[in-house]
């Protein structure tokens, strides 16, 4: 059995660059030529195509499933239901709480009920339509607040996690909301809402499963974490993990959408049932219901501050809608709660964090992971507070900005770098765009763009700044590690690591690290698969530190062995170069970050490894009557530790900010009674090239982070955290509206409440 996967390998990079260079991607050429094999491009001889039968209802009992018509269709090879799952009937990233195929009950629209394999994609699709499922409808539970006390919709209950952070010595509030110790302080409060955002990677879910004669299976798939997929596949197939081998197919973006299993288990079930390779590719509509989304949130805040702007206390109640299954909800609410007050010194706080099950679409990981939601709220609060105090909003932020040695809400002292003030100041001080900067492109540059709807006299401009932060790597005591092997033969280095390259540029970085450490400029990246130990997830801004750290440690181990043999570790010394070229060297390293601990009953503890900070300053033009917004300028400053590849860094900053702009102005999965209303790129809008003009860098703040490889922090998520808050704040500034909800819709502007 052969498949065309040679194009997925990134090959020998011509003259690998060193750390600090703006190195181009080694897989860039094949990708630009259309020769790079994404998981949707794979094929195998005799392969079948799979299709999923999904629930059209948000909540229902399954009365019966009749597969007979589908089975009888010419070209259909198998129709599988829950009774065909030989191993564990459920799966899940943190808790195995979701049925592989629903048996008695469906809990969200799009839940998988059966899978079909047939000779071609269209036959599989029509056979799936021919599976007759009889449902008895149940009123869906779709309101997160109600779900806290409602009848459980799942055996594990509705509350996935209730996390309370009590920080400092917050006194009790009376029924009137008064704590005597807070007498005389300035107080502001508000309730903020974040809609459901989709990761919308351009590549939909896709994979190819190939069975072997010995009952084992190979799965080529686009994912963020090969090993956790493998473990879930093996459990549900009832196979030992060494009989399930996963290889990364080319990944068309991820952003959190690929951290959970989607079609992985289904593909393997069908391949083993039929003895044939099976391929499946979701279409866009199926993708929208086939992966988790960013949690919608309702967040009620109250801040107290002294007249000089010093924050005294923050209380917040956070309610996140996790949808029908747990996914990574427990970790998302932890992030939302831990960073709920923003990168500010807060002596006293009570954060009451909830994430609950409902019959809405399941939510889980998306870039920013909980911190995005609370940043939207805490930054709105900071602007309210500045207004109430009569202070400049930037000055208020600087006055309270966290510094190394300060505590975050969990009582954890920031031991590493925290250049919060530098991030804020450099962003705020960037030159403002010209007042008439909207004229160069004519009407395209007005709100409404090519629609040519806006009259220039109705346009108002606003500018505002927001700042946010989050943790790098996994937290709360999770044993987070990556495994990498560096092998040198005939002067060529090969890096083997299961780190999922999803577009972020790990393949470039691995080449840079090996070149920097050993002086080898021919560096090949082997395909990522499960033949080596786990690299952990490509998420949480963690792969530069974790897998980069593992590659660095393996290369350094080779360097140390050579040094021990020849007496020098100078990679430019002729003896070193000769020793490297004339011998074979092979080192495998498992790299762990410093351990963290679980949060205690008060939500206190050293739960995080490291933190990264970013600020955005947005300038927008708004048509007040039509409610249309045009982003004019978006400046960002970010704390990055050290720049390893300025070009790739820029790509993360611009791309991440753009996703934040999407959440501010257009992106929302609309759900009515549990049903998704806009599962297409016609109806779910992501920013086009016309929507994001004027992205600029204010400053890249470089302070080497202790414990990080080369001092570099992960850079993927911070760009997405404060960009949304900044854009909406700029719209508030332009309009004088409260705008407590994101995304901001035209009606929110045209009919919104004045502040």
């Amino acid at each position, binding site marked *: 059995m052969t498949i065309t996967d040679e194009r997925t390998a990134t090959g020998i990079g011509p003259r690998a660059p060193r750390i600090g260079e703006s190195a181009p991607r080694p897989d860039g050429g094949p990708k630009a*030529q259309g020769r790079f094999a994404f998981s949707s491009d794979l094929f195998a001889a005799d392969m079948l195509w799979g299709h999923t039968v999904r629930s059209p209802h948000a909540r229902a009992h399954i009365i019966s499933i009749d597969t007979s018509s589908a089975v009888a269709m010419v070209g259909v090879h198998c129709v599988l239901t829950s009774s065909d799952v030989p191993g564990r009937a459920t799966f899940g990233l943190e808790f195995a709480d979701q049925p592989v195929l629903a048996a008695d009950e469906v809990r969200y629209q799009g839940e998988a009920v059966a899978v079909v394999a047939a000779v071609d994609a269209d036959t599989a699709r029509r056979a799936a339509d021919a599976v007759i499922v009889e449902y008895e409808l149940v009123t869906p539970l779709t309101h997160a607040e109600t779900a806290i006390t409602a009848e459980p919709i799942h055996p594990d209950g509705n509350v996935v996690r209730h996390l309370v952070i009590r920080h400092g010595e917050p006194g009790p509030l009376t029924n009137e909301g008064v704590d005597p110790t807070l007498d005389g302080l300035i107080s502001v409060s508000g309730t903020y809402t974040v809609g459901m955002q989709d990761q919308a990677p351009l590549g939909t879910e896709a994979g190819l499963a190939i069975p072997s004669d010995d009952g084992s299976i190979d799965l080529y798939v686009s994912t963020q974490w090969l090993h956790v997929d493998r473990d879930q596949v093996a459990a549900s197939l009832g196979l030992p993990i060494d009989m399930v081998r996963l290889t990364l197919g080319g990944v068309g973006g991820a952003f959190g959408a690929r951290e959970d299993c989607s079609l992985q288990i289904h593909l393997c079930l069908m391949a083993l049932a039929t003895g044939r390779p099976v391929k499946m590719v979701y279409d866009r509509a199926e993708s929208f219901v086939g992966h988790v989304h960013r949690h919608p949130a309702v967040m009620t805040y109250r801040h107290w501050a002294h007249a000089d702007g010093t924050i005294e206390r923050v209380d917040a109640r956070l309610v996140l809608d996790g949808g029908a299954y747990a996914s990574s909800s427990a970790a998302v609410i932890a992030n939302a709660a831990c960073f709920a007050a923003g990168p500010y010194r807060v002596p006293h706080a009570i954060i009451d964090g909830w994430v609950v099950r409902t019959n809405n679409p399941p939510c889980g990981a998306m870039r920013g992971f909980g911190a995005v939601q609370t940043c939207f709220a805490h930054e709105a609060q900071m602007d309210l507070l500045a207004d109430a105090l009569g202070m400049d909003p930037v000055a208020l932020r600087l006055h309270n900005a966290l510094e190394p040695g300060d505590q975050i809400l969990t009582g954890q002292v920031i031991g590493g770098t925290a250049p919060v003030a530098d991030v804020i100041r450099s962003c705020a001080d960037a030159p403002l765009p010209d007042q008439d900067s909207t004229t160069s492109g004519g009407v*395209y540059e007005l709100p409404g763009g090519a629609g040519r709807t806006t009259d220039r006299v109705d346009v108002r401009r606003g500018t505002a700044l927001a700042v946010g932060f989050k943790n790098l790597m996994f937290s709360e005591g999770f044993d987070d590690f990556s495994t990498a092997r560096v092998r040198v033969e005939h002067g060529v280095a090969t890096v083997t690591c299961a780190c999922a390259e999803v577009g972020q540029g790990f393949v470039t970085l691995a080449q840079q690290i090996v070149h920097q450490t050993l002086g080898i400029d021919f560096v090949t990246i082997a395909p990522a698969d499960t033949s080596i130990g786990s690299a952990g997830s490509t998420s949480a801004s963690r792969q530069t530190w974790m897998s980069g750290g593992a590659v660095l440690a393996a290369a350094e181990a080779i360097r140390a062995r050579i040094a021990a043999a020849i007496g020098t570790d100078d990679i430019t010394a002729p003896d070193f170069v000769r020793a490297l070229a004339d011998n074979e060297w092979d080192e495998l390293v498992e790299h762990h970050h410093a351990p963290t601990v679980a949060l205690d009953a008060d939500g206190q503890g050293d739960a995080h490894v490291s933190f990264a900070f970013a600020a955005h300053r947005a300038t927008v033009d708004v048509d007040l009557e039509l409610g249309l917004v045009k982003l004019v300028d978006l400046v960002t400053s970010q704390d990055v530790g050290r720049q390893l590849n300025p070009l790739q860094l820029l790509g993360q900053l611009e791309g991440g900010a753009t996703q934040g702009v999407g959440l501010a102005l257009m992106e929302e999965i609309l759900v009515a009674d549990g049903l998704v209303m806009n599962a*297409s790129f016609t109806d779910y809008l992501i920013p086009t090239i016309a929507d994001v003009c004027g992205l600029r860098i204010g400053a890249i703040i470089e302070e080497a982070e202790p414990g990080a490889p080369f001092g570099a922090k992960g850079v993927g998520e911070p760009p997405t955290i404060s960009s949304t808050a900044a854009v909406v704040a700029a719209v508030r500034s332009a309009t004088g509206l409260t705008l407590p909800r994101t995304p901001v819709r035209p009606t929110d502007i045209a009919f919104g409440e004045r502040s």
Partner: protein
Amino acid sequence: MSELTRTDDSIGGGIEAADGYRLHVNGAAREVTGSWIGESLLDVLRDRLGLYGAKGACEQGECGSCSVTVDGTVVCACLVLAASVTESEIATVESLGEPGQLSDVQQAFVECGAVQCGFCTPGLIVTVHDLLDQMPDPAEHDIRASLVGNLCRCTGYGRIIEAVLVVARRRREGGS
């Protein structure tokens, strides 16, 4: 167009072009067999002809990932009925550059950081070649107006605009 026959309607779309048909792709005549009559050009290119360069990401003509040219005009292959373009010249991203030898647009995309995950890239490459053929010296807003039908989720578009400007400059300086 050859006559249509009704085949076993359990397979495919049920209607198959009896003798198949011929497409002219990247300068060569390609026989299409086994295709049902309703198949899109995108599906035929990928699943019948093994040309995987054009990507499917929305099936609605919203994202531009499947951009190819038909008689020199950029189209979304997902919106074109394959059997309707048998008389046309079709060019895909595979016609631009050679393996290991990038076109100037492809080279600039890689150098400028316009490629991240790369899923949207082939469609953008086709579109940018067309843009620069028609408008050798585009202003930034011309680039934005021309590429508004190509969604990219990774880059925020800044490096893509940079790449287009770099190619335009190099072509001017190279005198071609």
